């Protein structure tokens, strides 16, 4: 019962937050992107360097808001006047606000880049098996439509994805797979999410565990010893059983 209440509370809170974000972004409605591409490059200390590339299909007069999980350090912008790219707060939530002039919009490419400390909890005691939780979430609160959405989570050098526990949107039918794939990029593993379309208010989320790719050698030694012991002490397996008395069933 309490679990059900908790789930309902979370759902209501989530819906309220989404409405708030949508409300904040209302002036930007009607803007369309042909491409939204986000690359999150994670470091072993838990920080991340994030680069977002937007390709505009139809612009609008109102500024675009990109939600952030925390206030970043310096913001670097390409393809846009630096004064038109800034960090603002709506309530306690930080956003990147971009003024995309409508007359120059079609086909225009804009990129922003920033660093975020503590993107995931890299320090302290890890969870079981050395796993650490990593979450990614993007809610489209600005654009009427994003034709092609992609996001890449590039893990620190030597780290691996352990397991994916949740992916939004879930595959609609049995037999379909979540549009998430792990590939190697420049020696690092990167989890890439690709969606053909993301409408206003739609969300992409990924929950997974990551950890160092090094495995403990103890298991290797233990199993090697076990195999050797078997070969040494269980040679009687090779006997045909004629010498031994026949086994009796109880």
């Amino acid at each position, binding site marked *: 019962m309490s679990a059900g209440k908790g789930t309902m509370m979370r759902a209501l809170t989530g819906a309220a937050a989404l409405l708030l974000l949508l409300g904040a972004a209302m002036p930007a409605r009607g803007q369309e992107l042909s491409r939204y591409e986000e690359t999150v490059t994670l470091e072993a200390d838990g920080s991340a360097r994030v680069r977002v590339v937007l390709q505009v299909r139809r612009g609008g007069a109102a500024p675009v808001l990109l939600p952030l999980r925390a206030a970043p350090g310096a913001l670097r912008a390409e393809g846009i006047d630096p004064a038109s790219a800034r960090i603002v707060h709506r309530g306690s939530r930080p956003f990147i606000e971009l003024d995309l002039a409508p007359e120059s919009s079609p086909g225009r490419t804009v990129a922003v880049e920033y660093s975020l400390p503590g993107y995931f909890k890299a320090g302290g005691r890890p969870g*079981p*098996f050395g*796993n650490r939780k990593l979450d990614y979430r993007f809610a489209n609160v600005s654009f009427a439509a994003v034709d092609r959405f992609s996001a890449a989570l590039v893990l620190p050098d030597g780290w*691996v*994805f*352990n*397991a*994916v526990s949740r992916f939004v949107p879930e595959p609609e*039918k*049995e*037999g*379909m*797979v979540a549009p998430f*794939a*792990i*590939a*190697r990029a420049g020696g690092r*593993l990167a989890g890439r999410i690709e969606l053909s379309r993301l409408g206003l208010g739609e969300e992409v989320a990924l929950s997974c565990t990551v*950890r160092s*790719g090094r*495995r403990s050698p103890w*298991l*290797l030694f233990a*199993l*090697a010893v*076990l*195999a*050797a012991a*078997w*070969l040494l002490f*269980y*040679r009687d*397996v*090779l*006997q*045909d*059983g004629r010498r031994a008395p026949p*086994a009796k*069933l*109880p």
Partner: protein
Amino acid sequence: MADMTQGRDAAATAGGGLDDLLDLDKHKLAQVPERKANAAERWMKYLGLPLGIAVFLLVFYMPLPAGLTASGQAVLACFALALVWWVCEPVPTYLTSLILMIALVFTDGWDQEHVLGVLGFDVIWLNVMAFVLSSILVKTALAKRLALNLIIRFGHSASKMLLAFLVLQLCLAPLIPATAPRAVMTLPLMMVVAAIYGSTSDKVNGFGRNLFLQNLLGVNIFSSGFMTGSTANLIAISLIMSLSGEKVFYTDWMFANLPVVLVTMLLAWFLGPRLLIRLKPEERRPVIAGGIETLKRQLERMGKVSFNEKKAAAIFGLVIFLWVTDRFHMAWFGFEINPVMAAMAGAVITFLPKVGIIKWNEADIPWHLMLFSAGAYAGGLALDNSGAARWAIDNLFRHLHVGPGTNFWVVYVIVIAANMYAHIFFTSKTMRVIIMMPIVVAVAQQLGFPVLALALPAAFTTDWVITLPINAKPNVIFFSTGQFSVLDNIKYGFVVSTLGIIILTLAGMTWFRFLGITP
């Protein structure tokens, strides 16, 4: 001829007479059969354990390939170890399953909650309930009566006897869509017939091995003759229809694949006792002194059908009726009674005081088999859940370099072979279909071939789960009798699977083309 008579007499005497031979209480399934291994099997036992460990270490410690998660890699390593151990049997199969379940949790392949939850799956319940039902056939001697009738009619030669069982399985396939109930229904008959031919769990001969393996083939492969032969067939068709928009009707499936199935099974029936597991002359006839006449006398001695036998037949009949009429349940009851609930209803009546037939202690339930199944399912589900199975299949197709310009028949053979042999690494048909079918549809669409030309023949391989005891429920059930070894199963399964690929390819070039399925 003299040798043959001598052999029969010896077997009958060694078995302690006909009554002893037919007393199935002496060959309880709950007891793990102790089979005497031959020299090759002993070497496999000895080397299998370190080999399994070596394979595990190789997969577990290799650099993580792109596309695979670390938990997927752990599951692959654990499953590979279990597969080697199930085949080589350095430790009993149920113990390998338990080790696999522990290994999955300890290597972070799958969490404990899911691993332990497998024992509550409906497939395990179905097995338990089906064995309860099977026990009433044994306890009331109804199985013995039916088997004696069968053998008196067809049992003059091993060949006819094997064929009679295949005909029986063919008749049951379109009626009962679940393979496990079909296996359990025929199991007691097979045990009695095998015993009459001198094959018991502690003294197996060629006839017993052939009988159980041919029925294993029959239960599984005959299912693929009918679209409703298994749930996995229906899932395959719904995937084809939803992913490609093509429609397939019941008769399309049956007209195309039933001839393929019949030809394959006839070939397997002919080749099995002659090539795969050769029957010795003394194994070709019942090993009862006095032959069929003795069996006739035995049947007469059993007298009229007893009240308990009638009760057993009624309970079994009720369950079979519910299995057969599942498509009408909604109209009759307003809900569908699935095979597990039907079997459970039968088991409840079986145990009811005064009304029922047996008490709990008389039910012959092989729990080691349930643990074996649970481990196999846990491994298979973990492969699916971690994405390791899909990663392996994707990589297989990528490495085969199938691309634009590749000849249709090359692609056809690759698709059929990949779908056919993939069953060796899966413990669930449904899972295999869900993973394979979208890939086959995608291959057809990318290369510009008609989707049905590749997807439908690929779907025809769904029920060919015949190479290892872990591949399907009937295999596990038949394996529990100890009448054949894993190696026997591999030999039969691999040869018949390969035969299936050849026949499906020939059918693709001729029969399927005539029907308009292939170009």
